[in-house]
C-alpha cells in the first residue's frame, strides 16, 4: 500500500491503474481515453487520485485502480478510513478522450469510462463537481489537495486551465 506521506514539496506521479491518497500534490500525465479521477474532502484538506483505464473489471481484483467499477469504491474506502464522509467528498474527472478517429468509433472506451465513473459516483452518493472530458485531446492533470483541491489540466498545445 502506498504511504500517505511524501517529502515536502514532492509530487506523486500516478501511473496507469495506480492511485494515491494524501494531502501532497499528485500528478498523472498523458490521459487519452483514460480517466484521472480526483476525490477531495475540503473539510479535511485530504484527497485521492486514480488513473483509470477501462470501465469494467469483470471480476479482476489485482489492480482495482485500473477499472472504473473498482476504482470508485477503492478511493471512497480509503478516504472513509481517514475520516472523510461521503457527503463532504467532491469528485472531479478528466480525460475520456478519443485520440484516434478511425479506431475510436466502434469502441469509444473514453466515453464508456466516463459514463461508468458517473454511475459509480452516483451509487456512492459522491458529488461530481467538475469534469473536463472527451474530445480528441490528451490531458495531464495536477491535483493540489492543500490548495483547496485545485486541479490544473494541461494540454499538448501548452494551454492549461483550472477546474
Amino acid at each position, binding site marked *: 500500500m502506498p504511504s500517505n506521506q511524501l517529502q515536502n514539496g514532492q509530487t506523486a*506521479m500516478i*501511473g*496507469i*491503474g*495506480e492511485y494515491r491518497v494524501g494531502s501532497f500534490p499528485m500528478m498523472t*500525465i*498523458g*490521459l*487519452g*481515453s*483514460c480517466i484521472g479521477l480526483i476525490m477531495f474532502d475540503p473539510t479535511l484538506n485530504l484527497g485521492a487520485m486514480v488513473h483509470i*483505464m*477501462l470501465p469494467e473489471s469483470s471480476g*479482476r481484483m*489485482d*489492480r482495482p485502480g*485500473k477499472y472504473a467499477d473498482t476504482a470508485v469504491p477503492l478511493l471512497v474506502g480509503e478516504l472513509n478510513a481517514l475520516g472523510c464522509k461521503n457527503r463532504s467528498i467532491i469528485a472531479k474527472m478528466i480525460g475520456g*478522450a*478519443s*485520440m*484516434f*478517429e*478511425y*479506431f*475510436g468509433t466502434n*469502441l469509444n*472506451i*473514453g466515453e464508456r469510462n466516463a459514463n461508468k465513473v458517473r454511475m459509480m459516483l452516483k451509487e456512492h452518493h459522491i458529488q461530481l463537481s467538475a469534469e473536463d472530458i472527451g474530445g*480528441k*485531446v*490528451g*490531458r*495531464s492533470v495536477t491535483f493540489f489537495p492543500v490548495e483547496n483541491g485545485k486541479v490544473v489540466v*494541461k*494540454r*499538448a*498545445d501548452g494551454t492549461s486551465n483550472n477546474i
Partner: protein
Amino acid sequence: MKLSTIQSDAIQELGNIGAAHAATTLSQMLGSTIEMSVPAVTVVDLSHLADYMGEESAAMVAFELQGDIAHGGYILFYITRESAIRMTNTMLGLTETNRPLSEMDESALLEVGNIMVSAFLDATAELLGFVMLPSPPSLTIDMAHAAMQSLIAQMQEETNEVLLFSTELTCEEYKVDSDIIMMPERSTLNKIIELLENLMKTD
C-alpha cells in the same frame, strides 16, 4: 511476460529486417541517408508507460495489425512534432519550422506512415510466412502517452504488460528522428515467436 534471450534476439532480428525495408522507403522519400538503431524489445508494465512515452507532442500514425490474425495488436509510426515539420518541409519544399501543421502535413504524415509500416510488415511477412496487414491508418498529433495509452486500452487481450518493440530511424541531414513501434497482442507475439523458433530449427 518474460522472453528468453534467444526469443528476444529473434524478435530483434525480425525488427532489423522490417526496419531496414522501412528505412529504405524513407530514404527514397527524403532523398537522404537514414540511420537505423538496433531494435529495442521491452516489456513494459502499464503503470510505468510514462517512462517510455511522455507528454511530448508527437505525430503518430497508428495501424491495427490484421491479416492471418484478425486483431493482432498495433503498429505505429512515431515522430516528434519538430521532426514531423522538418520532414514534411523537406517533402513539400517548405522552410518555415515555426508553423502549425496543416492538412497537407497531415496527408504527408499519413502517407509516410503508411508506406513505412507497409514496408516493415511486408518484410516480416516474407520472412515468417505469416501475413500481417496494416488496417487503414489513423493519425493523431498530441501527447505521446495519451495516444499510446488509448491504443493499449483497446487491445483485445487484457493485460498489465505490453511488449514494445521499437526501432529508431533518423535522418542526419534533415534532423528527422522517428520510430516504428510494434505492440502485438500476446497471442500474436506467441505466434511470431513460434514461427521464428521454427525458422531457426530449419536453418
